[in-house]
């Protein structure tokens, strides 16, 4: 009888813990949703399922910041708005979006007997995208350098003048001259100062910023607190891009875009 009673007690304990955890998650989700609505109203943001017209399926694998994972992925808390910025001395309103991207990564391990085991990890990151008023033509990616690259064991990417920058970032792009026009001395410095550990991708008329934002707004629950900071980061990143880069891609010359 004691054994049966013990089993029932353990079962009830599991049920209580399960219900409590589910309730807490549900409440957190509700609060996050409410904060998202509040933020959208306050900052004039539009809540959307397809940021800049891209669905989750279209985003998956398209950018460094939106990996496909093991084919399980999705986006949450996507908002859209206009961003007032100054590019090459001209004030412009650009359409931008921010959201949280998640994907499930498969990790395979091998034990001493040669047996393989798979485990699955849910990875999520913050993403901000802005539609530029010009087509960049080339694809340029600046992302955190791998451990091998950081130890200077591999240097297959584009190198710039700053050794510290070369250690921290991996730079890819077909047009090497355009890459150095993007990464002048002040851009190298600014990226090292404020965008370490984040990915920056220029492709077509889009600029995509991935990775954890520089902070979060207190008083807003969960990821929603990161949204205002993401927009500020995007604005600062656009300010870092040198005028020579904008001239090279024909920003001031509508006939070329």
């Amino acid at each position, binding site marked *: 009888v004691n054994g049966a009673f013990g089993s029932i007690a353990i079962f009830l304990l599991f049920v209580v813990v399960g219900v409590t955890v589910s309730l807490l998650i549900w409440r957190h989700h509700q609060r996050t949703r409410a904060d998202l609505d509040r933020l959208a109203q306050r900052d004039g943001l539009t809540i959307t399922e397809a940021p800049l017209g891209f669905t989750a399926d279209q985003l998956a694998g398209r950018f460094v910041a939106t990996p496909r994972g093991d084919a399980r992925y999705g986006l949450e808390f996507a908002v859209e708005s206009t961003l007032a910025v100054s590019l090459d001395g001209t004030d412009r309103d650009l359409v931008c979006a921010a959201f949280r991207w998640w994907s499930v990564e498969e990790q395979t391990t091998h034990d001493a007997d040669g047996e393989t085991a798979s485990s699955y990890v849910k990875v999520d990151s913050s993403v901000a995208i802005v539609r530029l008023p010009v087509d960049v033509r080339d694809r340029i990616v600046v992302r955190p350098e791998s451990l091998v690259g950081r130890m200077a064991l591999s240097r297959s990417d584009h*190198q*710039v*003048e700053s050794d510290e920058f070369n250690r921290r970032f991996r730079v890819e792009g077909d047009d*090497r*001259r*355009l890459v*150095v*026009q993007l990464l002048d001395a002040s851009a190298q410095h600014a990226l090292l100062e404020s965008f370490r550990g984040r990915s920056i991708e220029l492709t077509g008329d889009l600029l995509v910023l991935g990775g954890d934002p520089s902070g979060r707004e207190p008083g807003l629950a969960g990821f929603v607190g990161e949204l205002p900071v993401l927009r500020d980061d995007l604005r600062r990143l656009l300010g870092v891009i040198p*005028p*020579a880069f904008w*001239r*090279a891609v024909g920003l*001031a*010359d509508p006939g070329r875009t």
Partner: protein
Amino acid sequence: VEALLGSLAALVLLGGWLVVAYNRFVAQIAAIDATWSGIDVELQRRHDLIPNLVATVEGYARHERHVLHAVTEARARAVASRPEDVPLPEQARAEDGLTDQLTRLLALVEGFPDLRADQGFRDLQRQLVETEDRIAASRRLYNLEVAAYERRRRSVPSNLVASWFAFDRREMFEIRDAGAQHAAQLS
């Protein structure tokens, strides 16, 4: 026999390393030459743009002959400094001299609203700045290649290969960023 095999293996390894090190130097020299040709093409383009620019300004500001003459002279000096046997610092000085004169010319244009509104002049000015931007970027690429080459040329043990096969010192090309200077004066 083992000692002989060991020595043979060491010789093969040394020979392999020599070949790899030599070929890397050759590839670096080729990359330096390729990036230099990128600068050379853009410098030529800048020199080619200037006669048209001077002629256009002359149409509006004929009495500013001394400024126009100074630009033409500076261009002639820059063109004369382009042959391969002219040392790089001398070429750089000539190009910087041309940049100075172009800056004077573009400053002069500020006082001629009709000229500033001339579409032909605006196109030429924009082409000039874009060409100068490309010169600045090509110069950085060239200097990056030279820096990587010089680092290897001075490092142990690749400095041995450099001295055995006479891989000579390459100089950086240092000129001012004329594009950044002239972009502020874009009409």
